[in-house]
């Protein structure tokens, strides 16, 4: 069966971003860009399913500027078979991304679509669920375990207070949580091979998708700073402060 994996280009998780001086946006000039960590887990899961013989082909799709090719190449180096870039320099909000993915799902007809549960820039946690709504597929979000059994996929999900297991009819959508797997590193030979794998480019226009933004960011600012308090010398002093000064115990 075929798997579609979505990968997003984001500011690398080691970079501490700051708002621009005018508060219009986040300053992303000259910062390192990477594949979103949750998307990397999605690619790894697809590759593991292929290694188990469950999956025959992995298609990696990304959206955004031309440079997103780099993240698709990363996915190809990890084991995806071919890539699709939906190229645009316009802002893409999750609803627009879900609509573009739906158009690709209709063309490619994958049995499973694996996405990260959220991206570490916008922190929206929406795209997989919205793709589910648009395609009518079932969704296994925040997955920590995925097992394909015949015409169904069993997904264990990380929920508040524990774990929940669902069974979904294929085709279905899975979004990854941190503990689903630990992604491998791409080997040098695989990085070289990835350069020769096919990568097609299309656009939201060609897919017939209206990507006009629905929300506008009016301002970005740093969060309120919390001031450091005092150091206490002993447990007695700590207990005293908590009882008599802060009055919380």
């Amino acid at each position, binding site marked *: 069966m075929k798997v579609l994996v979505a990968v997003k280009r984001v*500011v690398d998780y080691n970079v501490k*971003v700051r*708002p621009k001086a005018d508060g219009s946006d*986040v300053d992303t000039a000259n910062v390192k860009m990477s594949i979103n960590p949750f998307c990397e887990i999605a690619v790894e899961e697809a590759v593991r399913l292929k290694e188990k013989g469950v999956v025959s082909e992995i298609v990696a799709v990304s959206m955004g500027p031309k440079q997103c090719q780099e993240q698709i190449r990363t996915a190809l180096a990890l084991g995806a078979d071919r890539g699709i870039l939906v190229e645009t320099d316009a802002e893409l909000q*999750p*609803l627009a991304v*879900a609509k573009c993915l739906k158009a690709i799902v209709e063309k490619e007809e994958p049995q499973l679509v694996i996405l990260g549960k959220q991206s*570490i*820039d916008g*922190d*929206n946690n*929406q795209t997989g*669920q*919205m*793709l*589910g*709504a648009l395609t009518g*597929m*079932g*969704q*296994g979000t*925040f997955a*920590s375990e995925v097992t394909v059994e015949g015409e169904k996929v069993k997904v264990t*999900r*990380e*929920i*508040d*207070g*524990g*774990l*929940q*297991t*669902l*069974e*979904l*009819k294929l085709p279905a959508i899975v979004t990854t949580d941190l*503990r689903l797997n630990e992604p491998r590193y791409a080997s040098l030979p695989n990085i070289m091979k990835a350069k020769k794998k096919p990568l097609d480019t299309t656009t939201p226009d060609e897919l017939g998708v209206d990507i006009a933004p*629905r*929300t*506008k*960011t*009016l*301002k*970005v*600012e*740093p*969060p309120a700073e*919390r001031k*450091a*308090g*005092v*150091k*206490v010398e002993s*447990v007695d002093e*700590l*207990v005293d402060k*908590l009882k008599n000064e*802060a009055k*919380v*115990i």
Partner: protein
Amino acid sequence: MSILVIAEHDNAEIKGATLNTIAAAKAIGDDIHLLVAGANCAAASEAAAKIEGVSKVLVADNAAYEHQLAENVAKLVADLGKDYSHILAPATTTGKNMLPRAAALLDVQPISDIIAVEAADTFKRPIYAGNVIATVQSSDTIKVVTVRATAFDPVAAEGGSAAVESVTIVEDAGVSTFVGEELAASDRPELTSARVIVSGGRGMQSGENFEMLYKLADKLGAAVGASRAAVDAGFVPNDMQVGQTGKIVAPDLYIAVGISGAIQHLAGMKDSKVIVAINKDEEAPIFSVADYGLVDDLFKVIPEFETKL
């Protein structure tokens, strides 16, 4: 302008995050309706009708909603939501799972995890793991929003007397089935609603050493949390994780033990009223947000702390 709030519940009880979400709704408008979608959920519906500020409770009681599968509940919310100006749900795993699906059915770009209401169409929300706060304005006719519970003080669970109306719409998408659930059983309070939290980090060195924190927590009536480092090291299960990708908490007292204070952890607890940090490394970033810091060996301090309470 009516607001539809989706109740978080387990058919028997309304979960606390619902009360914070209603508080956010009150910052937007007055006519607040609360949807309880479940199966055999009469008890939860009765409790819902007593919540302060709710004018109407909509009850969809059907087997299709028993486990609140996103595929079914999202359709119901989209059906009902057409007549509202706003649809709100708590930004819990249940809310985050279901609400974007309902939004897409309504062709709306939802706004996740708001921490403030600036205007009926404008909200503040954290991005980049809480390093940046964005003010976002929606141009959609219906605003679909999830609410970070810790950012809003809860409304009272008692004192209201809302009308209860039953909803007969049954949506069963037929693509998903519930198989099972493993919920951590504990006599301690839940992390997201606890008044006091004791959290351990990599400095705990092992899962066994967390016993010390459980003892301390039981003296304080506290919940026990952990940093991602402690979870990744396998000391404790992941549902104990506090941080941007785990639970967001804001108790009256947060005691961080052997936690260095990575950004992703701070994002999950820095709105706590009083923060105590216990760490032997005095350079640890956790001290920069702590009201009271104690630089010492936790293995000496924690047993002493427990006996002196």
